């Protein structure tokens, strides 16, 4: 099975490649800060927001898009 984002070899249990797994970890770590900042934040809404921000990294945007699609 390849990384669903870029089709490279997956290296982690999440099925993502090394680069996208790093981005996934960063996304998870920042989610708590967003919840604190706004009082509450829906996970899908959060993913959509970081996907659109110009400050977000390229891999972050790709993983955010992938996770949002995965969650329907």
């Amino acid at each position: 099975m390849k990384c669903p984002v870029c089709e490279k070899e997956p290296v982690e249990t999440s099925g993502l490649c090394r680069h996208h797994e790093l981005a996934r970890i960063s996304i998870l770590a920042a989610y708590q800060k967003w919840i604190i900042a706004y009082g509450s934040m829906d996970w899908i809404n959060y993913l959509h927001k970081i996907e659109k921000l110009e400050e977000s990294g390229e891999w972050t945007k790709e993983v955010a898009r992938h996770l949002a699609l995965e969650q329907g």
Partner: protein
Amino acid sequence: MPEIPKEYDLIVAEKPDIAKRIAAAIGGNQVEGNATYILCRGKTNYVIMSAVGHLFSLAPAYPKRDIHPVLDLHWVPLSHVERKRKDIDWRISAFKSLSKHASKLIIACDYDLEGDTIGYNILKHACGAKKVKAFRAKFSTLTNDELVKSFSELKWQEEWPMAEAGRTRHFLDFVWGVNLSRVLTDSLLEAGGRYTTLSIGRVQGPALNYIHERESEIRTHVPVPYWRAKASINANGGLFPADCTNNRIEIEAEAKSVKQEVEGKKGVVVEATKQPFSTSPPPPFNLGDLQHEAYRILGLTPSQTLSIAEKLYLQAAISYPRTSSQQIPSTVNYERILDALSRQDSFKSIVASLMGGRISPIQGQKSDPAHPAIYPTGEPLRDTDTREGRLYDLIVRRFLSAFAKSMVKERHSLKIACGKCEFRASATSTISPGWSTIYDLNNDREAQRLPSLKVMDIVTFVSVDVVQSFDAPPSRYNQSTLLERMERDEIGTKATRAEVISTLLDRGYISGNSLELSGLGFAIVEAASKYSPSILSIEMTKSIERKLESVEAATLDSDAVTLEAVDQLLTCLSLFEDNLVSVGNEIRLAATQTAKAKETLGGCPVCHEGQLVLIRSRKSGKRFVGCSNYPNACKASAPLPQRGTIRSTKYPCRTCGWPVVLVFTTYGRRPWQLCVNTDCPSKKRTLGPKPIGGGSSG
């Protein structure tokens, strides 16, 4: 060629321009010769013979290419390695024959690692000295006065620790470069990839790793929101801005409550200070500082700066540029230099303004036993409206500012409280500009002045804006900041760091002004970190650098350093070789994409679908530009120059829309900029291509 006298001293110069200057300084008008100078001073005859930089190079002792790793090296004439060099062999022969009858041998190469290595190799390999002994001339500028002085104070030299360190460095760079490049290239071929020149070395590895770390941070960055509250405050009828002292409010609700609590309310001044402070002039330039400032102010890359600075040195306009020192000792005749600069129109008024300033220049912290900081000699520059002229101007201004008075400023600060919230306003004004009128280091604009308020004065918060921001990702390195990082971590030398960055760009590992890591760069670093991580290790590189410095200081034997470094290399190599196919698989795809990207010159202006790519004809072997959409009927094509290296500029001609390329024909010369369209209307106006900077491309 004029007749060689029976008795003479032989002077070995590093470059023809330097030989000419030495000849003029020592012999005055009584100089004969062109490539070899024969002259007489007092009762002594001199013959000056010049090298052209290195005359000897390292080469494998066994010519067979299948012996690996390559560790057995010997010094051979450079012409054996670079076959096109026609200016090497006759010079070696001339040194050989001239040294036989010379009474004295005087090495007058640059006084540094490379200069000593050049001189030592000539004595050892051209003059056939069994035990290398010679007189050494030491100078930091090519002015007549200093050259004459250096030849009157020659030092007898039997030990050559600088040359030893230089030769060891050459050896280590060669064996690391050649063996690691071979194993990378082999891995690619083993994995079914096509031949591509790949490299990684003991300095390249850590430098590339810096960019990899930064690029990973940027690409995985997740911005976190925060807010800042900015107020507009009314005092005595005038408005001034102030920021909430908590300049990073991490909860939206808190940010909104600041606005509610403060807007339209009265505030009280709880702190009012006016603090003068002075800033000393920046120290004179060492090479690193010059490279940073030339990048910031003139947009020159570190390698361009080094190359221009060397030209200025050869013109005797500045002192030797490859120096770490930020200090100009009192032995440098400041008065004479200031006097000479006061006779140059551009600096006349500046020198006059220094009256009452410092008697001696301000000194920096860093020193260099071989050379002082970079300073102008006072010799005027002929053409000032060039890149040389602009760099010279920067060096002179920095030198002159070192004599100027400190800059004095005043920081005015107010703290205003309103309920639980505190706001701060600050402004800086210049009391005395001092050196900043000569050399503007800060480029900062002065903020709006604040009203004169005292503690307990009452003000009104007219409005409060709550501004939402998101954490920005870290900035990419540029050539200047990467150089700074390499300096800080002490990897590479002042002379080689810029070259390492250029190699990373040439290989296609990084690109752009903000150095972005390419797919190939990622693949190389990740393959190295997986299979042979010590190649990327700063500690290992730094440890070798320190030991080479000890060799230079004659406190460590070069063999010990060589053995240790070769041992480390063999470990790296064996780890790679054990995983050759896996390494190749990691790199192959990225290498193919990078090679294709290098050959793609830009979008096709004819079909607007394909890409114009560099193609080599199978029939004639000639290269040309053709559209990638050719099988689908686009016949756009154009011939290309058959000599030189072609690189895409990634931008189209402003006249016809075809790609503009750079053609590099001669090493070290500026490339030609060329629109590949032979029918481009812009070519009807000018004959032939224009050099970069010579005008628009189309």
